């Protein structure tokens, strides 16, 4: 899931990344706490649009930095979630389209959970 750099022979940039990487993983928990309730809100018509906007913001943030920290797969999944929730959106009354968005969000959640589990075990 993650490609953690070797601790030896790190450039100054890589050393800086290594130093804040654990904070990034820890902060993924904050994103997780925000994303999980949004899945339900997307399924509800009255809160759907706002929830999708929020998912877009979170996935954009993750997309922008995950790859640099060595989480290329997370970056890829976050990109897909961001693209799925960026305007112009599909018809939000189309349940297939909504379901597709929910799947992308769930993929992102699953990826975050897997990273946190792996990091906790390491």
């Amino acid at each position, binding site marked *: 899931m993650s490609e953690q750099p070797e601790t030896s022979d790190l450039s100054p940039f890589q050393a800086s990344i290594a130093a804040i990487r654990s904070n990034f993983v820890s902060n993924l928990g904050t994103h997780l706490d925000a994303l999980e309730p949004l899945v339900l809100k997307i399924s509800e018509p009255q809160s759907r649009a706002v929830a999708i906007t929020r998912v877009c913001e979170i996935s954009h943030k993750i997309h*922008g930095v995950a790859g640099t920290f060595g989480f290329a797969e997370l970056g890829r999944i976050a990109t897909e979630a961001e693209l799925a929730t960026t305007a112009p959106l599909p018809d939000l009354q189309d349940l297939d389209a909504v379901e597709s968005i929910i799947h992308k969000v769930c993929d992102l959640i699953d990826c975050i959970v897997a990273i946190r589990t792996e990091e906790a075990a390491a």
Partner: protein
Amino acid sequence: MKILAVDDDAFALSLVEAALAEHGFNDVVTATSGEDAINLIEKSRTTFDCFLLDLRMPEMDGVELCTHIRTFEEYKNSPVIFVTAVSDRACINSAYAAGAVDYISKPIDPIEIGIRVSVAEKLVMEEREKKKTKLQASAMQEQLDSILKFSVEDPVPISDVPRVISKLALENYLLGLGRAKMFNSSVTAFAINEIEAIFRKASPTEMYFFLTDIADAISISLKHTDSLICYNGYGEFICVTKRADSALNEELEFAINSKVSSFELAYDDGTPCEVSISMGEPAQATIWSTGNPLMLIQSALKSVGESQKSFRVVPTAGNTSSSFRSPILNL
């Protein structure tokens, strides 16, 4: 070089700082919002030399922040580089139109940041030299002429015209387009037919204002398009638009010339400045196109050169018959 980096995400800011430090740029101030950045700019005792901005931020986005930065006299020409995960073309166009000179995609590559910011540093050095010259000039007209003294081939930056950006920024924009977006783009060149005669007769200040007015005429004529324009030197302007843009038709050349005529351009002695603009065929990538997208600029310039061959300069006592064209056309 003093840099202000702005991003609402603390991790992104840390990465940018680390990438900059890797290349020796240690004088870095960070802000997590546009409002925060403006406060820092207003309160800073020393000026910032360069700005690295995230595009998508809450409250005030990067484009709005860049536009605000450009209202400060001391930051009118400071390099602004966007560092963002946004790939939407309209957003990127807005960033360049707001005054960005470059654009770096996230996830952050420290090598790319180092290269781009190093280029920005060169621009800063050039600007400092210009400012030094400005302070040494005595009279306002002499001062302007010495600052604006340029050769006909110089791609002087045109300021304060919507969607007109520097040549460097336009080239960076083209180089940053992916293959699909390149395929969906057109590059069109416009050229001043009388550039030789005008350049000989006009003072540097007059020449600069003529170029600005012509850039304005092109920008106004293309105002309903999603275009970016730059001045290439040699009286040539380069425009990048969407491939399917219907504004790129035969009527556009007529519209631009009509607009230029309406400006009634004249030299300081009151003599009318006769100007006509030729437009080339749009240059477009094909699905088989490989290599440097800047080749589209060359194709566009070649096309406008061909359209100018039909333009006859009426010999007068003042002009010579020597050819005076961009070397890229090999005329």
